């Protein structure tokens, strides 16, 4: 999910999914986080940053 807005005091971020859905996500485990970052979220908690996609080759 992509980070849209950050609440630093509560370590929460408003994140947007592929379909435009938005949820509040706990970001304490993946700090530092910036707006525009893409996070992997499980059960409302971000557990990893996603790096830029790599090109798959055959």
């Amino acid at each position, binding site marked *: 999910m992509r980070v849209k807005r950050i609440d630093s005091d509560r370590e929460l971020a408003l994140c947007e999914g592929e379909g435009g859905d938005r949820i509040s996500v706990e970001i304490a485990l993946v700090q530092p986080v910036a707006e525009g970052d893409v996070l992997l979220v499980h059960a409302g908690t971000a*557990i990893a*940053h996603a790096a830029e*996609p790599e090109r798959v080759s055959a």
Partner: protein
Amino acid sequence: MSMKFVDEYRDAELGRALSAKILSSIVPGRHYKLMEVCGGHTHSIYKYGIDDLLPENVELVHGPGCPVCVMPMGRIDDGIAMAHEENVIFTCFGDMMRVPGSEKTFTDAKAEGADIRMVYSPLDALRIAKENPDRDVVFFAIGFETTAPSTALTLKRAKAEGVPNFFCMCNHVTIVPPLRALLDSPDLRLDGFIGPGHVSTVVGARPFEFIPADYGKPIVVAGFEPLDVLQSIDMILAQLSEGRAEVENQYGRVVPYEGNPAALNVMAEVFELRPHFEWRGLGFISQSALKLSEAYADLDAERRWEVPGVRVADPKACQCGEVLKGVIKPWECKVFGSACTPEHAIGTCMVSPEGACAAYYNYGRFAREREVV
């Protein structure tokens, strides 16, 4: 509309090219049996028809990486008993609601009057506790190391904020012990593993080093898009053809080799290993599950309420155990698609969206002839 992080891994032409590369790299006449550990991979394989892109010599078998599927009936019974306790609001993830216990599901118990609520995250359960200070709120925690950090953070927050009416019934399990149990099992001869991508974001790839070191098998940690899975299969087959057995990381865009230290730290603070835990189909496995540590004992629902704690055998007709061990394919179960469907499930593998039986059923996948090389 293109979607970054998605389109790059769903290119049909590249998929066909990888398929051709796999076909050219296998030894004719040799059978390759690879296990996808994670239920998310099982779902991707059947959703995208990845097995159709593989020669018959390359067989994919499903592993124990679906947390709902491995939950034994006795734990459901314990949860239902807790939900019926006076003044309790019982919370769980939605995919637990229809998992059968020995006599009923959480949905049945809710219909009988128990106050059972679905939540999206443990933090939602904590919010319910704060909104209902005169009630006791129990969160039924399940999942592998992917979900355990979320529960741990919530418990830490509950303790820090002094929420006295929030409790956790912990059913979190860990991925390495069942893999070792499978590798020690005489039922199954595996050539390699498609490693669990999301669990590895937390634990990293290092915990899987025992697979090549102790068993001489390759494992490739993989992402969940179709090209991720195909590429990981290609990487496993390359190791086999070159006589190598290593841990490789195909999902490097999300999985650091060392995992997420912050998540591991909070888990270490809040949880400790249970001496043993029962897994559906696999029986009792030592040090394969988590309970709350002494520092968090006051939030442990199993210390707050007594539960039956009775071991319950699976229904005779249900072969989830064999499916979870990869010994049989879902369609080989006697009740698959007849007595057991997603609407009226007998076994957990048909209930969970990540379950192998549900994946086969929902995507209409049955045994078919494929090209033999």
